[in-house]
């Protein structure tokens, strides 16, 4: 499927993602169907059925078991992939935490979708935010090409001897998963060059018996958690290196924090995922009217890129954070509360205004970004000190 001529082809992003998983030559795929993840796992099942991918496809009876199968196969040293969304992620959440603490380098695509209730199959980030603190490396991608490119990146980071963390790729459900985009595939040789075969340092095998997932009494538990935290933070160079190498292979440059027309911007918008694309359009339009506005798109969510983020917003007067999940009764959306905390200790920091928008795929058009900028300006002028505002509520 890889096109050696590296021409762009029109393909549904879910299909492109599963083609990338195939190109990574995964050994085990275990999944349970849930909208809008289905096209990814359906295509993988088909690739296995057609003999194009030599892997075990394990169609389990729940997401909880999907991640549990992943735990077992990854512990056995197999390259392992799964995908889910929303309620599925909620059901597997217990094991999402376990595999991170056990340092099992599983790769999972989350086709981001709202959490019930009311039932919603549409897109926001409430599912991802639920497992924010699980210890996975977590990224959000903006478009189809990024989704595809980052599958290779995910495995490379996860399996790096200096990392050994599971990696979660968040892609907006429907917005990305069900969209046909022009995507440039990598040739298989490029993948080979970029992604070495998985050589686990530790695996379950009778030749070298070991105990995995033991019981940690209080005398040792704190030390385990400290070690895990340090290990996740210490992954940053591996993450950066993986992006540098990726650029060398395919020419596309990615980083933890992306900026767009941000250099001289007084007002910065902060987005994650596919909203960043729309925000760019909005910023171009606003720039034409003389508005000094720019964009910060947060790609790396965990480990949080504090230094890069602080640097990206250091010259701004105001920072408008657009969250896609509600923290009920809390200090604002999860991204806003996090960046407030990240900037609190700085001497000079932008005024932060938080909007929660785009819940369950509620459309956010370029004009909505313009509206949010205007409202933010008014709030600042009026001295409104609200923690957050849920934007676009029909009254």
């Amino acid at each position: 499927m890889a096109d050696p001529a590296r021409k762009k082809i029109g393909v549904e992003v879910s299909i492109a993602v599963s083609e990338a998983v195939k190109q990574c030559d995964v050994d085990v795929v275990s999944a349970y169907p849930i909208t809008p993840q289905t096209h990814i796992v359906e295509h993988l099942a088909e690739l296995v059925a057609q003999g194009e991918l030599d892997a075990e496809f394990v169609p389990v009876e729940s997401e909880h078991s999907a991640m549990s199968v992943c735990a077992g196969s990854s512990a056995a040293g197999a390259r392992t992939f799964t995908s889910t969304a929303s309620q599925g992620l909620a059901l597997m959440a217990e094991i999402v935490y376990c595999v991170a603490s056990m340092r099992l380098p599983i790769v999972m695509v989350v086709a981001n979708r709202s959490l019930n209730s009311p039932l919603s199959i549409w897109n926001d980030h409430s599912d991802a935010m639920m497992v924010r603190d699980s210890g996975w490396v977590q990224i959000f991608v903006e478009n189809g090409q990024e989704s595809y490119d980052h599958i290779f990146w995910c495995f490379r980071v996860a399996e790096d001897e200096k990392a050994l963390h599971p990696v979660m790729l968040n892609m907006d459900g429907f917005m990305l998963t069900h969209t046909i985009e022009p995507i440039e595939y990598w040739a298989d040789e490029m993948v080979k060059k970029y992604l070495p075969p998985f050589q686990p340092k530790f695996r379950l095998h009778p030749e070298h018996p070991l105990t995995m997932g033991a019981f940690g009494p209080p005398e040792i538990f704190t030390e385990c958690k400290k070690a895990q935290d340090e290990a996740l933070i210490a992954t940053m160079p591996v993450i950066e290196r993986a992006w540098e190498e990726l650029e060398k292979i395919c020419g596309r440059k990615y980083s933890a924090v992306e900026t767009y027309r941000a250099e001289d911007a007084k007002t910065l918008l902060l987005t994650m995922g596919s909203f960043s694309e729309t925000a760019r359009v909005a910023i171009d339009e606003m720039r034409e009217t003389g508005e000094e506005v720019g964009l910060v798109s947060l790609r790396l969510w965990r480990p949080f890129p504090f230094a890069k983020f602080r640097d990206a917003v250091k010259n701004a007067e105001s920072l408008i954070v657009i969250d896609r999940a509600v923290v009920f009764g809390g200090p604002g959306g999860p991204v806003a509360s996090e960046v407030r905390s990240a900037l609190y200790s700085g001497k000079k920091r932008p005024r932060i205004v938080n909007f929660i928008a785009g819940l369950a795929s509620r459309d956010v058009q370029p004009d909505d970004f313009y509206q949010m900028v205007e409202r933010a300006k008014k709030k600042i002028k009026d001295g409104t000190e609200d923690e957050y505002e849920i934007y676009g509520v029909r009254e």
Partner: protein
Amino acid sequence: MIDLDVYAPLLLPKEELFTSGHRACQGCAEALAVRIVCKALGRNSIVAMATGCMEIVSSPLPTTAWQIPWIHVAFENAAAVASGVEVGLKALMRKGRLPHKKINIAGMAGDGGTADIGLQALSGAMERGHNMIFVCYDNEAYMNTGIQRSSATPFGASTTTSPAGRVKAGQETWKKNMPEIMAAHGIPYVATACSAYPIDLYEKVKRAAAVKGPAYVHCLSVCPTGWRIPSGDAIRYGRLAVETGAFPLYEVIDGKYQLTFDFPKLKPITDYFKGQGRFRHLTPEAVGRIQERIKGDYDKLRAKCENVKK
């Protein structure tokens, strides 16, 4: 006449794969069961174990009682984790990344991790047909958390969440028939066993390991702490469970039932209940009701078994 059976355990492999030094209670027949199961599985084995007594007693960091590869992830997913290990190794061997070798993959859990919270994952793994063994160590309650009732707790037993009181007489439901549920999955091998019959347990696990496809062994594991019996009596009560028909030993091989030990005349259930603190509140009427049920169940089982005289 010398009872030569007494010496039979000496014929088991000497190598301990589940070693001493673990923190199980004195007289724990579940630890004994694990020890024998591991002897039967042998060194070329990998164990995925659920949270529970055996996990807690065997793996407090930085120590381990396990001489074979062992993984614990959570309470309800031992079967799913074991199936993951199985597919992982299968793929790696097929793709030439690991040398071909027969490795026994065993999932293990207590009765809660099997019949309650772990039932879904277990059913899924059995239905998918993984080449694995699942062993349920049934001590008839959540002993690790302090003797709470499970669906495997027998009728009438007093536990901390089914306590016998002035208006209630302990567990009010009948023991879930887990081996039958497994047999209904149409898997090639199902057996019940008890660590009070170590040689039989050993042989059944050997047969389970030899089967291609999923195998299930349900092992009654007497818990002196939870059953409120003296720690030296676990084996005696294990034997009585079998001899009274409270826990019959049988196999279902490719759908065919075989009774391991037939007792045309069962010992009265009172022989088994006597001395067990968990049953001491039972009235003669309740005992009579249980006796009737046990006899009925035993007769039904016997009728299905092809190796008994009808």
